[in-house]
């Protein structure tokens, strides 16, 4: 159903913009043929893991760009400053998400919903340092599926020479010197891991037992997020080697969390009284504040991800600027398109609708932020608003209870974005519009593989938790509210 929906939109978009996009697509192809070394984490020596994919499309790549020598990394303080800032910006998205979700639940569950995001900062913050970073970005342990444990406890990021500390550098492109301390890279990535699992909580809100949620966070991050990050972002991950494009986490973050949300609610079930009882948002101003914080933080999420951009050794340069621009354009257009779709379909333009549209636009542009140009970003945004509006309506139609539309926005938006990236990519990679059909297929493979993996493993986690400690609170506790029964607090006194 959802695939059908997004495919229809996709076709629409393609036909509407055939002419201008064809022009857009040609231009950059002249300048940047060397779509080669997509290097996520490149410890200096492994330069030759480079151009397997791009060669197929860019057969006419110039010979001189063939094999530049790897060089030693040199600390770039400007890049370091920007990634430090970006990491903090991404962290700021988590309270933003907490408010976004918190405003949408009933007043008896607002603290519990805020805690779902905040406790994820705690659990994943610890998990990431202990093992998560190593499983995601450590050297490959097995077939490009997961990292080994050699970087457990962030081991090796600092060494001592004659008693003086030496900080390991993270160099994105092995043939260029620009680098940042790996500590900075590890912490930037840590924020992504924190927010991803918190996104799922939107589907679980108002009925999950807090103890079960905490275990879910730990298990999901370890068993789903860490492997996926390794597949897609690590130089020796299997999807990375296939050339799957995911600039800032459309597949790893949004698709995976959205699909997992759907899997988790299969065991969790509907809220008591859904859908007859009134479950209107209790504080939409809180939600709108959350939207603003998310958009603000998303500049770190997307523009910061230039640190791992294809062929880009500058974290704070033109590519970051491009990602910044697309991260402005797409959500702006998506807010409008959701608002207008709702205006036509339901009669009134709602604040919640505009806010949801902005978030949908941010989700959809995430995998493409540094691969597409502003014209395409506009299309991403317009498609995002309409497709995700359709996604949340699907819930009302099909009567499953994804409380706050984690699947409707992140699952459907993430999928749409990942596929559209394979259509409109023109910067550092090429997509369908530039005649690269292979990229489009690769994107579909990445979506299906990541989606299927996340769905199945989440089903298993949810099943095990349900059979052991139980996922849900008692019915009486649910009626009284989770704030009081899970936390012995109330939000408004």
């Amino acid at each position, binding site marked *: 159903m959802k695939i059908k929906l997004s495919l229809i939109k996709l076709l629409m978009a393609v036909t509407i913009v055939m002419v201008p996009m064809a022009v857009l697509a040609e231009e950059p192809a002249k300048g940047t043929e060397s779509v080669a070394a997509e290097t996520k984490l490149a410890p200096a020596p492994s330069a030759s893991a480079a151009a397997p994919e791009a060669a197929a499309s860019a057969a006419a790549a110039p010979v001189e760009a063939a094999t530049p020598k790897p060089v030693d990394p040199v600390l770039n303080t400007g890049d370091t400053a920007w990634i430090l800032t970006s990491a903090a910006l991404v962290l700021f998205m988590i309270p933003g998400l907490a408010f976004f979700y918190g405003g949408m639940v009933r007043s008896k569950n607002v603290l519990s919903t805020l805690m779902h995001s905040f406790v994820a900062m705690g659990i994943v913050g610890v998990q990431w340092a202990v093992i998560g970073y190593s499983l995601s970005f450590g050297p490959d342990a097995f077939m490009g599926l997961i990292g080994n444990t050699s970087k457990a406890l962030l081991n090796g990021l600092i060494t001592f020479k004659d008693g003086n500390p030496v900080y390991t550098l993270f160099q994105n492109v092995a043939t260029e010197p620009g680098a940042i301390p790996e500590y900075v890279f590890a912490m930037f990535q840590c924020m992504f891991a924190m927010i991803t699992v918190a996104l799922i909580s939107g589907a679980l809100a108002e009925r999950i037992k807090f103890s079960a949620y905490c275990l879910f966070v730990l298990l999901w991050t370890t068993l789903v997020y860490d492997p996926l990050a390794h597949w897609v972002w690590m130089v020796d991950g299997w999807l990375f080697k296939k050339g799957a494009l995911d600039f800032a986490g459309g597949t790893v973050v949004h698709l995976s969390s959205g699909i997992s949300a759907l899997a988790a609610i299969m065991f969790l079930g509907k809220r008591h009284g859904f859908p007859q009882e009134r479950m209107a*948002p209790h504080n939409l101003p809180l939600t709108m504040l959350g939207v603003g914080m998310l958009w603000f933080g998303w500049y770190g999420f997307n523009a910061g991800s230039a640190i791992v951009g294809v062929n880009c050794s500058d974290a704070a340069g033109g590519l970051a600027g491009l990602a910044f621009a697309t991260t402005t354009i797409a959500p702006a257009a998506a807010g409008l398109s959701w608002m207008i779709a709702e205006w036509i379909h339901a009669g009134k333009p*709602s604040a919640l609708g505009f806010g949801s549209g902005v978030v949908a636009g941010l989700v959809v542009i995430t995998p493409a932020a540094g691969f597409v140009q502003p014209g395409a970003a506009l299309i991403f945004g317009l498609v995002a608003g309409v497709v995700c509006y359709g996604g949340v*309506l699907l819930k009302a139609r099909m009567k499953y209870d994804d409380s706050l539309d984690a699947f*409707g926005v992140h699952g459907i938006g993430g999928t749409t974005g990942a596929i559209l990236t394979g259509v409109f990519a023109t910067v550092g990679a090429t997509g369908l519009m530039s005649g690269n059909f292979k990229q489009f297929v690769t994107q579909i493979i990445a979506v299906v593989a990541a989606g299927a993996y996340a769905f199945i493993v989440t089903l298993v986690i949810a099943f095990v938790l349900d059979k052991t400690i139980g996922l849900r609170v008692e019915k009486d506790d649910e009626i009284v509210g989770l704030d009081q029964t899970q936390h012995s607090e109330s939000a408004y006194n």
Partner: protein
Amino acid sequence: MKIIEAIIKPFKLDEVKNALSEVGIEGITVTEVKGFGRQKGHTELYRGAEYVVDFIPKVKLEIVVADELVAKVIETIAESAKTGRIGDGKIFVLPLEEALRIRTGEKGNDAI
């Protein structure tokens, strides 16, 4: 002595209060209430989930007045609370047996 209960639209409260002050009323009790009458409720729509809101917020005034003021007060409220649209509210008049000012112990009309 009578007690006058008036249920009015919330945004009319200030107008009604000022009008009542002008005719010499010195005390009003105000309660925020919800209910429905002929105005019925309305529907709210959140991401496609539709909720019918049956009970509409209103304000209830309770005013205790001496018998000779009753007609004047009713007229004042009816005039100042009127918009002419459905949902303007209602006024009820009930008999009142006794009143007492706690501070001084005054009773009856003196306590109003």
